[in-house]
C-alpha cells in the first residue's frame, strides 16, 4: 500500500490531477465564501451579459451571466457542490451495494450467486441512460431521485469486479486459515477478503465517478436535472445550449468545468491504477 502510494505520488501528472480534484472539492465545500455573487440572484437586465473581457461585460461578472442574469462564475462554484455530490453519492451507494452483493455472490456461491448474477445480467441488458430516464420518469425529478436512478444500475459494475476478485480470494490460504479457525462467514467476507480486494474496487470507483458526472449531465440534457434554482454543471450546459449561437459562454464555461474535473479524476485514477496494479511495476 505504502509503496503504491509512493509510486502514485511519483507520477507527477496523476498527483497534480489529484490535487486539482481536491481543489474542486474544497471549492464546493467553501462555495459561499468563494463565490462573488448569490448564484440564485436573477436580474433580467443582465440577461446573457457577456464575459468581462468582451464588449458589454463587466469585471464583477467575470464569466458573464445566464438567461436570467445570474452570475455564471458563482453558479459554477455552487454547481460544483451538486455535480460532485451526485458523483460521490452515486458511487458511494453503488459501491457499497456492489461490494455487499459481490461478496455474497462470490463467497457464498450457490443460489445467492445465481440470483445476483442473473439480476446483474438483466440490468446489463438495459441501456444505461434509458434505464435511468425511465426510472426518473417513474420517481419524478429531484436530486435524490437522480442519485437513485443512477445507483440502481451503477452497482452492477463494482458487483462484478468484487465477485470476480472474491472468487479468487476465497481459495487463498489465509482465508482457508480463517475458516479453519472457525470465523463466521460475515467476518471472513468483511475482515479477510474485503481489505484484500479493495484496491481494484477503488480504482473502478474513481473511473466510474467520472462517468457518473457525465451521465448526470446527459440526464440534464434530456430535461431530467435537479430542481432550480440550484443547478449542476450538466444542467447549466444543457440550459445554455439553446443560446449556443448567440451567447456561447452560458454553456461553454460549465462544460469546461466538467471537462476539467472529469479529466482530472480520470488521469488521477489512471495513475492510481498503474500504482496499485502490481503488473505494471517494473
Amino acid at each position, binding site marked *: 500500500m505504502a509503496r503504491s502510494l509512493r509510486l502514485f505520488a511519483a507520477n507527477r*501528472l496523476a498527483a497534480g490531477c489529484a490535487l486539482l480534484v481536491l481543489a474542486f472539492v474544497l471549492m464546493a465545500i467553501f462555495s459561499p465564501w468563494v463565490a462573488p455573487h448569490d448564484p440564485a440572484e436573477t436580474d433580467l437586465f443582465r440577461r446573457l451579459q457577456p464575459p468581462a473581457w468582451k464588449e458589454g461585460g463587466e469585471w464583477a461578472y467575470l464569466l458573464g451571466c445566464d438567461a436570467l442574469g445570474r452570475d455564471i462564475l458563482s453558479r459554477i462554484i455552487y454547481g460544483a457542490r451538486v455535480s460532485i455530490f451526485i458523483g460521490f453519492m452515486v458511487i458511494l451507494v453503488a459501491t457499497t451495494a456492489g461490494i455487499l452483493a459481490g461478496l455474497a455472490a462470490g463467497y457464498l456461491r450457490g443460489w445467492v450467486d445465481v440470483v445476483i448474477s*442473473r*439480476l446483474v*445480467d*438483466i440490468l*446489463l*441488458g*438495459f*441501456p*444505461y*441512460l*434509458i434505464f435511468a*430516464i*425511465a*426510472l426518473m*420518469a*417513474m420517481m*419524478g425529478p429531484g436530486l435524490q431521485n437522480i442519485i437513485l436512478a443512477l445507483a440502481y444500475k451503477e452497482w452492477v459494475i463494482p458487483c462484478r469486479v468484487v465477485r470476480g476478485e472474491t472468487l479468487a480470494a476465497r481459495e487463498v490460504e489465509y482465508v482457508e486459515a480463517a475458516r479453519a479457525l472457525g470465523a463466521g462467514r460475515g467476518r471472513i467476507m468483511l475482515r479477510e477478503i474485503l481489505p484484500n480486494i479493495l484496491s481494484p474496487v477503488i480504482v473502478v470507483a474513481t473511473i466510474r465517478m*467520472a*462517468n457518473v458526472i*457525465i451521465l448526470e*449531465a*446527459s440526464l440534464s*440534457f*434530456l430535461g431530467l436535472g435537479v430542481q432550480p434554482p440550484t443547478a449542476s454543471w*450538466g444542467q447549466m*450546459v*444543457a440550459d445554455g*445550449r439553446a443560446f*449556443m*449561437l448567440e451567447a*456561447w459562454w452560458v*454553456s*461553454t464555461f460549465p*462544460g469546461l468545468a*466538467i*471537462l476539467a474535473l*472529469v*479529466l482530472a479524476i*480520470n*488521469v488521477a485514477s*489512471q495513475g492510481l491504477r498503474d500504482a496499485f496494479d502490481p*503488473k*505494471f511495476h517494473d
Partner: protein
Amino acid sequence: MRLGKLLERLAQLIPVLLGVSVIVFFMITLTPGDPVQIMLGDQQVTPEQEATLRRDMGLDLPVHERFVKFLGNAATGEFGLSFFHRRPVADVIVERLPATIELTLVSLILAVVVAIPLGVLAAVKKSTIFDKAATVTSLLGVSMPGFWFGILLLLLFAVNLQLLPVSGRVDFDYQVQPITHLLLIDTLLHGRPDAFVNVLSHIIMPALTLGLPMAAILMRVTRASMLEVLTLDYVRFAEAKGLSRGRILFRHALKNALIPTVTVAALETGTLLGGNMIVETVFGWPGLGRLVVESIFVRNYPLVQTAVLLYAITYVVLNFIADLLYTVLNPRVKL
C-alpha cells in the same frame, strides 16, 4: 464450437430477456402519466371518446391481463401498435434502426482505428511524454459530455466554417435505392462515390462525438493488455531470438493483446447503441435512441417495451460475439 455450447448460450438468453421484459413492463406501466390524456392534448372530449381511445390502446384491461397479453404477444413476435404513430411498433422501430446501426458501426470503426495504434504505441513507449500525451488526449474523449462536444463541433464545422452539414443522413439530391439500408454501403454498391462522400460528410461529426469516448476506453484497454503481453515469456523469448521489433509487436504481441480490446469493444458497442439518443438529437440523426426517449416521455408503452427488448437481445448477442472473437484470436480458449 460445439452445438451443445451454442444451445446452452441460447438458453441463457431466456431468463435475461424474461427479466428485462418484466422490469420494463412494470417500470413503464407504474410510471404516472396517462397516454390517453397526453394524446388528447388541449381539447374538450366526452368520456365515451376517451374510453374508445383507451380501448384502442388496449389500456382498458387490468394491468395483470395486459402483462400476460404482452408476454404472449412478445413471444410470437407481435408487439402491437405504437400509441402515437398508430402503426405497428415493429415497423416504426425498423424504420429507425438502419440509421442507428450505421452510426454505431462507423463510430466503432473510428474508435478502433484511433485506439489500437495509439494504445500499442503508448504501451511500447511507456512512461515517455508520448505515453502521457496519448493517455491525456484519450481521456479527454471520456471527459466531455457528448452533447456539449457535439454542439461545439457543430458550431465550428457547420456554422462557422460551413464545411459539414448541420444535420441529417444525406442530402436530398442523392436518391439511393436502399439495398442494405446502410447508406455508406448502398452508395458504394450503386457505384456512387459522390453520394458516398455526401453521406460521409453527414456522419462524420455524430460518429466522432459518439466514437471518441469509446476510443478512449479501447485505448486504455489496449495499452494495459499490451503492457502485460510485452512482459510475457514468449515475447521476451522472441526478442532473445533476435526477431525484429515490429515483427514481434504486430505478429506476436498485438494478436494476444487484442483479446481484451475486442471483448471490451463488443460490450461497448451495446453502450453505443443504447447511448446515442443524445448525439441523435443534436445532429438530427433519424435513429432509434431519440425515438425511445421521446416515447418514454409520452408513455408510449409498446414502443418502449419493444425497443428495450431489442436492446437486451443485442446486448446478449454482442456478448456472444465477444466470446466468439475471443476464440478466434486465441485458439487456446475453448468455448
